[in-house]
């Protein structure tokens, strides 16, 4: 049986797109990462049997998107070109609330990029995409217990970092 990309994308494409777009909040970047993830999946399928296309695509897409976030954070730019600014993603009636929510999202993305890669991947796949620890463990070649430990560490680190950001903001309004 040949992998039918049309069928695979019809079934799992939306999940891949959602995972990557949520992480990046930018259409062009998300498209670029999805294309890369699909090329990765194609290469993977040349050498190994794929039983869980949904989990595989979500994992590869998440990995590519986290790489992209890390790359963006490492550039440390003082100004950002207009086309690189994330698209307004949250719909609320109040502009102030919208600004706060957008800022919080940006903080989370920024902090996520600072986490060790495996922790970031497990956090995203379990908390955001709703995969079980068993599924994530199979994709990341680890045991379910390792996945749980990584998630616990990721959450603890993110909470600390978000808390520190908040305190800094309070002292440097």
């Amino acid at each position: 049986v040949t992998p039918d990309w049309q069928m695979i994308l019809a079934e799992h494409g939306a999940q891949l797109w959602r995972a990557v777009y949520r992480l990046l909040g930018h259409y062009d970047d998300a498209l670029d990462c999805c294309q890369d993830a699909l090329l990765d999946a194609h290469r993977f399928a040349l050498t190994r049997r794929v039983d869980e296309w949904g989990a595989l695509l979500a994992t590869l897409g998440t990995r590519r998107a986290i790489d992209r976030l890390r790359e963006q954070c490492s550039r440390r730019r003082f100004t950002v070109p207009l086309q690189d600014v994330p698209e307004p993603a949250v719909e609320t009636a109040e502009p102030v609330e919208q600004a706060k929510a957008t800022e919080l999202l940006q903080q989370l993305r920024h902090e996520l990029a600072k986490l060790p890669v495996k922790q970031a991947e497990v956090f995203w796949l379990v908390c955001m995409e709703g995969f079980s620890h068993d599924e994530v463990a199979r994709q990341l070649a680890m045991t379910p217990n390792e996945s749980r430990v990584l998630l616990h560490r990721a959450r603890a680190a993110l909470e600390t970092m978000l808390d520190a950001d908040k305190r800094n903001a309070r002292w440097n309004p």
Partner: protein
Amino acid sequence: MNQEPRGHNDVDLEKAISEIQSIRIPQMPSQELLLSRVPLHLQKRDVIGHRSQTSATESFWRRRLPVTAAAMLVAAICFAWLLMPGRQSAAEAFNKFVEKLAAAKSARYQTEWRTVGEPTGVFQDYYLAPGRFRSESQSGDVVMISDRRIARFMTVHRTTKRVSVMHLTGKGTRKPENTFDRMRELLSKSPDAKDWKYQRLGENVIDGRRVVGFQYDSPTELVTLWGDPATGYPVRIESVRSGLPRTEMITTKFEFNIDLPESLFDMTPPPGYKVLTFDLDFAKPSEQGLVDGFRTTIEFAGGEFPESLDFAGVRKVAKDFKALAKGGKNPSDEEMQWRMKTATTIGNGYTFALDLPTSADAHYAGKGVKPGTPNRPIFWYKPEGASKYHVIFADLSVKEVDNAPQVPGAKRIEKTSKTMQPAAK
């Protein structure tokens, strides 16, 4: 969603998670765009072998792998030594270069267009994934920028200070073409290509680099690729299109994965330029499109079908079109709208006929036929996988028939890459 144990001060984290989950997700890009980097023909051929293994076989190899690995390694080295150098199949070697091309995120290269009856055009092209493209004429007078994602392209004429912005619409709208995506799609989406379609051309030296060459005969183009085995990247790609007139595209001086500023692809018209905007029906070439193309040709060509669907015939249609177009080199805005619409309808229609594969057994027999003549076939072909022929009659009706019509003087539609002499260099 998984409910994980929470800490006491994770309110912000939970809030951020909840915000992210409520993000408005834009519509997923088309499958074609998402898969534009996946070389589908490699996937198909290679994975068939992989999938044919049974789980029992996999299990056997998993158990025996440590024992047999050393023996297999020795055998593989011996086998490789026997086959090397240059014993890899032409298809496999060709496809290694294609993979690099498919994975490129940006590129700068030079394109030379050689069209029969036209002066040679040289352009500096830039490509930035996904789908952004810029082409500058050698003189710098004309710049074309396109964006496949939004189906739009813009042409800037610096000498006349005019800008044409075209929005492509229509059912199954084709994306604006650019040379890079076209190359990639042509080379990476040929699932039916067999090994005999590839031919090894041996070694050559281009710009002081040792290169190896291959030729690939696709249904729509004859492609010659010269690649540098040291880097794995293509160095020169030549393609001859099967459409009319015969057109050769030669791409050289490739630079891959370089930093290109976004400003190169900015589609804001320069200040002080006159902007003309067109909405063009750019539907995918179809049988109905060909019927519309014939109808439009009849309307402005004095009630006649084209003499032939080859270079001479299409050139005559273009000549009639130029003669009837009003306003010469400085047409009014309405005239420009009419010219673009008419040219697109005719071009789209004829493209359908000229892009049909040889197996479609397409024929044209419209020369000298009076439009409206009942039961007089002017064009027929066999759609892929169909058992019956589709026939377009002189009254522009379409019917299915079991056998190809027998019409004296009917001409078979041939690929120009095989039938015409190369354009002058």
